């Protein structure tokens, strides 16, 4: 800490150099090109004729250009942009990225700002526009974006630009604001495969007539036993409600994803794996929505049993970050005997060392 205090004078020249090194870019708009053309024309006419009023006009035109540069610079100064991503972002699904622009200047408002988010080094093809940001105030806006693939995406910052005040030039500056977002695999409604009755206790329990303690009432879901419908509560509430028992609340499912691809693989194989991951995520969502406790296993991947909203988050994150493995890489856990397990495999991809005990082996559609 002391060193940092003592060393700031030596770091000061670097700071000055960095601030002097212009991070602004300037481009002519179409009107700006006409304006420059007119200025040159007036200049030539003034020099040719020696008419002092044309010189006055020329001086004014040049002053407008200078004033435009200064005012646009003032506009861009002390503007802080922050990004607020939604909690969950899915591939192939549009989402709203919220931007908050704050004018940190004390006395001057900023007008006509355009903000572009920069993702993976390239500006996102949406521009957010702020007509006016009063001094000391913030304004929000959002843009809709779609990312086509799951994974981690790095946002480097923003490009803030303005054509204020006259629309002759577009001045831009880059604002660093690095952050990363995690894009989950896309999900879609899927039907979960019917459970193997010998593995579940609701209809085929060894303890006949006893399915565990009464747990509570919940809404009817597809696949529920109609005999579990609690008609009195249903009439009262106006929606189908079923009794939930302790054992049922502990329904478990193991979801397996085979993320192995042959070493020589092309786009087709990669896409097949992506589709499988997406299908797996959809299944996970469906199971967890139904109250299952779910475990996710893949080659080099293990998400332990859990249920609820938190588990869907874990599962989606894990699937978002899931890497491709080879068939030599084993699955991270074994399937317990007599447990429900669904194995999702990429379509058209054969691989070895797949667990054989899975109750269902599904190919991604």
């Amino acid at each position, binding site marked *: *800490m002391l060193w940092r205090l003592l060393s700031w004078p030596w770091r000061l020249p670097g700071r000055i150099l960095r601030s002097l090194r212009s991070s602004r870019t300037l481009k002519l708009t179409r009107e700006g090109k006409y304006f420059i053309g007119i200025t040159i024309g007036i200049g030539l006419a003034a020099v040719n004729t020696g008419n002092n009023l*044309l010189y006055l006009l020329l001086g004014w035109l040049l*002053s407008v250009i200078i004033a435009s540069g200064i005012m646009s610079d003032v506009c861009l100064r002390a503007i802080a942009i922050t990004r607020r991503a939604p909690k969950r972002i899915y591939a192939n699904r549009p989402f709203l990225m919220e931007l908050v622009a704050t004018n940190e200047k004390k006395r001057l408002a900023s007008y006509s700002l355009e903000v572009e988010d920069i993702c993976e080094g390239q500006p996102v093809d949406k521009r957010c526009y702020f007509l006016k940001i009063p001094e000391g105030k913030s304004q929000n806006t959002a843009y809709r974006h779609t990312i086509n693939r799951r994974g981690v995406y790095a946002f480097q910052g923003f490009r803030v630009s303005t054509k204020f005040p006259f629309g002759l030039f577009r001045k831009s500056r880059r604002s660093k604001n690095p952050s990363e977002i995690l894009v989950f695999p896309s999900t879609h409604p899927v039907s979960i495969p019917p459970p193997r009755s010998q593995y579940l206790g609701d209809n085929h329990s060894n303890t006949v007539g006893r399915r565990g303690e009464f747990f509570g009432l919940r809404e009817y879901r597809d696949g529920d036993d109609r005999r579990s419908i609690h008609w009195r509560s249903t009439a009262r509430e106006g929606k189908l409600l079923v009794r939930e028992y302790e054992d049922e609340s502990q329904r478990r499912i193991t979801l397996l994803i085979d993320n192995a691809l042959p070493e020589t693989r092309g786009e087709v194989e990669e896409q097949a794996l992506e589709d499988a991951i997406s299908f797996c995520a959809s299944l996970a969502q469906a199971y967890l929505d139904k109250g299952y406790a779910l475990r996710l296993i893949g080659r080099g991947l293990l998400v332990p049993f859990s249920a609820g909203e938190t588990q869907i988050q*874990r599962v989606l994150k894990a699937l978002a970050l899931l890497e491709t493995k080879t068939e030599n890489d084993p699955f991270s856990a074994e399937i317990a005997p007599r447990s429900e397990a669904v194995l999702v495999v990429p379509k058209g991809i054969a691989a070895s060392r797949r667990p054989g005990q899975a109750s269902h082996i599904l190919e991604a559609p």
Partner: protein
Amino acid sequence: MRFAKAHKVTTYAVILSAFLAVAFSGLLNPVVVVLATLGIFASWFWEAPRINFDKWSLPWTIFAVVVFLYETLSVIGGAEILLGGAEFLVTLMLTKLFNRRESKDYMHLYLLSFLLLTAGTVLNAEVTYGFFFLCYVVSFTWAMTIFHLRRELESNFLLRHSTQDAAEQVRVQRVMNSKRIVGRKFFVGTSLVSIGVFAGALSLFLLFPRIGFGFFFDKGRGGVTMAGFSDGVELGGHGLIKKDTTVVMRVEVDSKYAGREAPSIHWRGVAFDNYSEGQWKRSPKAPATHRLANVSNGVATHDLLYDKRRMSSQELEERQVGALKQKIYLEPMGNSVLFGASMPLSFALEDKIKTNTRSGKNDELRQHHDAGLIYTVYSDPNPPSVERLRDASTSLPKGYQVYLQLPAEIPECDSPTAVPSGVWKTSDINSACRVRDLARWITRDATTQYDKVLALETWLRNKLGYTLQMESPGEMEPVEFFLFQRQLGHCEYFSSAMSIMTRALGIPSRNVNGFLGGEWNEYDNFIAVRAGDAHSWVEVYFPGEGWVTFDPTPAGESDLLGRGSSSLMDRMRRIADTVRFKWFKWVIEYDLYAQLSLFRNFGKSVRNGANEYFRDPLKRAGKWAKQHRKTAGILVAIGGVCIALLAFWRRRKTIDQILAPRASTGRRSPVVKHYLATLRSLAKRGHRRGEAITPREFARDLAQTGVPGADSLEALTELYYRAEYSTAALDDPTTAGRAQALSQSVQNALKQAKYKRGASVPS
């Protein structure tokens, strides 16, 4: 003010400024000006939804085409092309005003207004252009700024409500009616900007080097056309302009002639030698002006030699001693006469490409100009002494006999006629010789030619009356009519009468036209000579002494406009004239010489100021410090401490920022901290993660390039991912420990690699 209304008001301000800048030139057709003014105001109300633009589109197009054809035919018929173009521009602007629908219509309006303003630079060189130019600058800044916001608003204002709904364009009407977009602060701010722009424009205007080539145009401007300075003048012309206050020239003069009480100066212009049938002319036999012309340092000097054929440079210098210097700013007058205080000795003009100073006759100098002229004159306002004039000889130089010419109506009449004393109006006087007889009678007691001339001047001043009311002399010769019939007249009659009478006595004289006096302008210290100051007087030749000015017009009668009073109206008028003068001096007539002079004066002021405020005090301070070293040392030390404290205080914020813990957006996992520390170590060794590279890609790249510690980095990266995107296990000590170990492993590997590299360098 509502946004939409602010845009409309400022747009109209732009339009009006440009239009009036051209309209005030006075060159546009008055009908066009009136109709255009009415049309501009009427168009304010012509907009949707009151008006259906589509219905009126065709009529307006037809109107514009008709006007275009009319202007084209006018130009073909001989009208000035620029005027026709300006009128057509006005028509286009009106058409556009009545068809304002979209942003691009406003853009067209701004462009048309700019074109009009450009046309005004040629059509209107008056100070009104400067005033409307300033209005245009201010209103243009407002209008273009608001227009830009409006256009951006219309094209950018998209609101996306959700990821599922299609984007819809929000109606901008709510914003257009908003009062919060542009308010007082906005207008004050943009006004300051426009003042800055105007100041910048003036600065650039002063700095641009003036290197006009003038290939196609030669700037000219209108002025006052005056009779009396052409090739001939008819008696009675001056009376028509005696009340005209148009300034024809401004003169910066020595302090002796400055001020309202200073003596009036006769500003000599043209001289006529031949009088007949009531007209003064320049005869073909009139002596040509003798002059010496030389060019030095870009200045052409013309020395008038009058009756001498040659003068040495020493003689020229001697006669300049004590001369009255005048810097004259001459307005265009429709003639090429150069004026100067009687008697002018030399004229100095800029030797430009188009210099075409030509000497006329009767000691006149002429220089053609269309846009006014600036030149310097040196004059001798003091006539020779009375003694020398009385002793002057009577032998005339060759060619000076023309100055004795008398008209046929006024014969010489050699035979003397006795004139009863005191009686000169009766029919007893021989009517054919009465002018000469009158002259002889007036000068009966004079013994020398000078005394005779003086007697004539005095008699005319005292005995005859002044009037501007003209009366036709009928068949009578005008001078005779003036002397014997009406005995009232204005300066032309007085000067003509004196000139004729002196010639009748055999004394050479000529009639001179010019100006007398002028109004003193205390705001800029110059004499404003007006058209109404036009005057006629007489020059009488005394051999050996030259021409001497005599003014027989009663004093005080001819100066109708006076030297100016201190009434409010007169002061306002002088202020306006000063503004106009400054405008022409520093804007219209600003040239390379003025520019260089300005830079020189500016440099001198800066140097003088620097000497006065910096160098001399520094010298004194240095001297004092040498004498009081101890005290000076203490003061310097105290000053240094103060400066350091001040610098520290100003930098306090920066230090606070350094010392303050880095603001954290939330609780940071130890795994993330270790990962970031590892990144910093790698960056120090030249392995910086690019902004567009994800952590995983970065680790993979390092592994592929064989950077030491890359394996550990990959594992650490996985931990980082789990820590950063997982809500669980943030504080897991096992994971944190593993992350620390991996980070240390990377750093150790880098250090070892560096050591090995150092060790492997041959000594």
